[in-house]
């Protein structure tokens, strides 16, 4: 029978109906006797209901009848791309694919070689996108190759280090 640590991903799959029958039984057996996982399962189910209600509140008065007016307007006007395509096609009436592709490749390769020398400095090799912690956190950039995230933890019964 799986322990609590293994349950996290199984509970998601359980509420999503993505488990095999024997796995479902295993989860149900565990949840019966585990208060923590039982609570987590309830929270997942409640969260789904509330999210659906929140979206439904906005959709209930949706002006769906107006959808087709806007679509009809848009379809009557050719897109800029469609206009450009017809002009482009007219310019190149004797189009040779292989030659064009070969020249295109040469341009791309030249671009890739020159581009690094004429553009702004490369992006950092590490970027922190988000942090979650109950403890105070500090984030600072070491250099382009290093980033530091420091969280301050007071251990119970132990003195803090200076």
């Amino acid at each position, binding site marked *: 029978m799986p322990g609590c640590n293994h349950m*996290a*991903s199984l509970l*998601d*799959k359980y509420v*999503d*109906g*993505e488990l095999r029958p024997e796995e479902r039984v295993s989860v149900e057996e565990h949840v019966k006797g585990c208060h923590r996982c039982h609570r*987590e399962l309830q*929270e*997942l189910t*409640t*969260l*789904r209901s*509330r*999210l*659906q*209600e*929140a*979206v*439904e*509140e*906005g*959709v209930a*008065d*949706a*002006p*769906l009848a*107006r*959808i*087709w007016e*806007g*679509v009809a307007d*848009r*379809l009557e006007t050719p*897109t800029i791309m469609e206009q450009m395509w017809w002009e482009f096609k007219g310019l190149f009436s004797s189009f040779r694919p292989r030659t064009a592709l070969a020249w295109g490749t040469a341009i791309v390769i030249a671009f890739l070689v020159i581009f690094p020398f004429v553009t702004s400095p490369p992006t950092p090799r590490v970027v922190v*996108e*988000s942090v*979650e912690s109950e403890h105070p956190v500090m984030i600072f950039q070491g250099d382009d190759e290093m980033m530091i995230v420091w969280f301050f933890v007071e251990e119970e019964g132990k003195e803090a280090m200076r």
Partner: protein
Amino acid sequence: MEERDLIERVQRGEKDAFQDLMTPYQRKIYSLLYGMVWDREDALELTQEVFTKAYRSIRGFRMASSFYTWLYRIAVNLALDFRRQRMTNPEIHRAVDPPNKERPDSTLLRKELNEHIRMTIAQLPPQHRAILLLREVEGLSYKEIAQVMGCQLGTVMSRLHYARDGMRRTLTPYLKGED
């Protein structure tokens, strides 16, 4: 299959068949887009964009995936582009107040909770938000979500778990207050 027949008719150029084809999906697409942008007018405009794009690109639809996953894919990509262009997310700077336990009125509590849900979901990274909505509101399977998002199954599961975790941590006090 009626839907397949409608698709083929639209692909042959029969514009009239297009509305019949899309009508069953208009509420679903609107619902997904509303969850992504939380504004009725923006969601309406985006829905119109989705349908327009679907009409223009339906000749490229090869029936390799289901029609609705193809349609959802267009919707998600347009919603992600829309957010990138608009770059508006004022909710992210607003502090979330603790639940007011002195307000017993359940309608007010429900409105407050919906507002908190809206703010919390607005803080999720856009891809995580899309996956959460596709699963929780639209009811797509992991495999279908992977097809819509153009990513692997493992990515769907990890992003969904991350999104749910974030939502639970912020919203659990409100869910408990309600019970």
